[in-house]
């Protein structure tokens, strides 16, 4: 009897340690260790993970106001705006003031939400609309388009990437009775001053020297500009009768708008592509909001 009692403990130890033998107590112990480890990890994540805790201020923030974070970057920007100092140089009073201001602002924003300020104040509504539209547009910039995509965009919209035409012209006006003769004289190469003196004409002075097309259009008016635009360099336009007489536009130089080469147009191509992406994203976003909304329209407007 005494011999059996003395040998029992070694058998129990070997059953616990021998993986080839079934040991219910070992299984239970390992399960417990696993459960405790899992709980430790879950608890740790719950209380330390970014955005999941209300007890710890994350490193990237300087405060939580009713759970709403105030970003450290905003705090640093506030210190710079208020005192033109970096955090390392700021006095405790300056730091306190910057933080207090940000906390007060956050509290007022939260109160504004409670009061639904955006529902009533047109300025806040406009700012809110703008902010939401902008936030949607931000996605258009987060991924740079591949060069092949930009090249294809350029090829498909070449007309958008043209330079402005340049024209050098004079607007000459003659009495209707002498206009035809004056035009013949000008086309034959007679000096302008001589022709003006001989046929009682004058230079209106609307265009002087080189002008971009848009400027010439403003200065000459649509009708005269169209006539000028179609006139090659060194020639006289067709006659255009207006209230003050018969006009001829004498064109010295005329360089119509021309598409820029891709390399020169690249910044504009990139910007145009981005703007189009922004428009598309914002339209999709509005459609999405509309689809998920319940909009009841008054009978007279249906």
């Amino acid at each position, binding site marked *: 009897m005494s011999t059996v009692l003395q040998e029992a403990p070694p058998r129990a130890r070997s059953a616990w340690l021998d993986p080839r033998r079934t040991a219910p107590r070992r299984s239970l112990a390992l399960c417990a260790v*696993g459960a405790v480890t899992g709980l430790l990890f879950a608890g740790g994540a719950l209380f330390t993970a970014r955005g999941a805790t209300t007890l710890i201020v994350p*490193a990237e923030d300087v405060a939580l106001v009713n759970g709403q974070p105030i970003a450290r*970057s905003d705090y*640093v920007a506030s210190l710079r705006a208020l005192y033109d100092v970096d955090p390392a140089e700021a006095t405790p009073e300056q730091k306190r003031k910057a933080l207090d201001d940000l906390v007060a602002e956050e509290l007022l924003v939260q109160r504004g939400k409670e009061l639904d300020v955006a529902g009533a104040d047109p300025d806040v509504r406009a700012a809110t609309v703008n902010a939401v539209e902008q936030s949607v547009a931000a996605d258009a910039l*987060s991924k740079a388009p591949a060069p092949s995509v930009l090249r294809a965009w350029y090829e498909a919209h070449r007309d958008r990437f043209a330079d402005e035409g340049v024209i050098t012209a004079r607007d000459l006006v003659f009495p209707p009775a002498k206009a035809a003769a004056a035009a013949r004289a000008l086309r034959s190469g007679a000096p302008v001053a001589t022709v003006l003196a001989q046929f009682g004409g004058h230079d209106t002075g609307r265009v002087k020297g080189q002008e*971009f097309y848009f*400027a010439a259009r403003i200065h000459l008016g649509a009708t005269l500009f169209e006539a000028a635009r179609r006139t090659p360099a060194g020639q006289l336009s067709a006659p255009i009768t207006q209230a003050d007489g018969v006009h001829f536009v004498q064109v010295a130089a005329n360089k119509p708008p021309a598409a820029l080469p891709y390399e*020169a147009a*690249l910044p504009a191509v990139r910007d145009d592509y981005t703007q189009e992406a*922004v428009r598309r994203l914002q339209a999709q976003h509005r459609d999405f909001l509309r689809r998920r909304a319940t909009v009841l329209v008054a009978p007279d407007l249906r």
Partner: protein
Amino acid sequence: MALAAVAALGAAGMGAGSAGERLVLADPDAPAPSGALGLFAHARGRALFHAKCAACHGGEGQGDPAAGAPDLTDHDWLYGSGKASEIETVIRHGIRAFAPKTWKLADMPAFGRARPSAGEAAPQLAPNEVSDVTEFLIALEKRPHDPAAAERGRTLYLGRGGCFDCHGADGRGDPGIGAPDLADNVWLFGHGRRDEIARSISDGRRGRCPAWADRLSSAEIREIAIYVRGLSASPAPRGSRP
């Protein structure tokens, strides 16, 4: 064995997290973090830069003058003075990035277009006036120029053109609004050729940089900022032009 692996992974994750936290809590404008934290920030910043920024700024941060993406290695800072905190602000909020706090205080008007600026009153210039201002900018850099045209350009620059308002009377720019220094022989768009300068004046410029505040963590943004600051740490400034 599995338990040990999980524990090791957890420890590694916590280690990365604490290094990130130390980085975020550190003064961004202090000298670059040394030792393990510095290596950690630089390595991660480089990887993030290649993933997020290199498409525009190039793999080595050399920029792209054709697209107007600034060279980040040349000591010539368009926004701010090259402090990590300023770089961080640009990364976080972007430039004209459709983000609430983005940097968009000024656009270069298109002086040779019917509507030079969407937001502000800006004058239209005639083609010869664009040429004159171009000549003035060439003169600012002490390159061979037509003195009479440059003088007319100076009058426009300081007068009706209103260029001085952003670029300064001396042409040294304003890093507070991203107005480039026009006298330093460093060009954001192109290489400083006359036709390139004239196109900038005629068509305007409006570079953009995305805002990463909602896409990257504060630690990641700090890591990129530290890496970018390191790109221009070499003492050899560029600026030569073909």
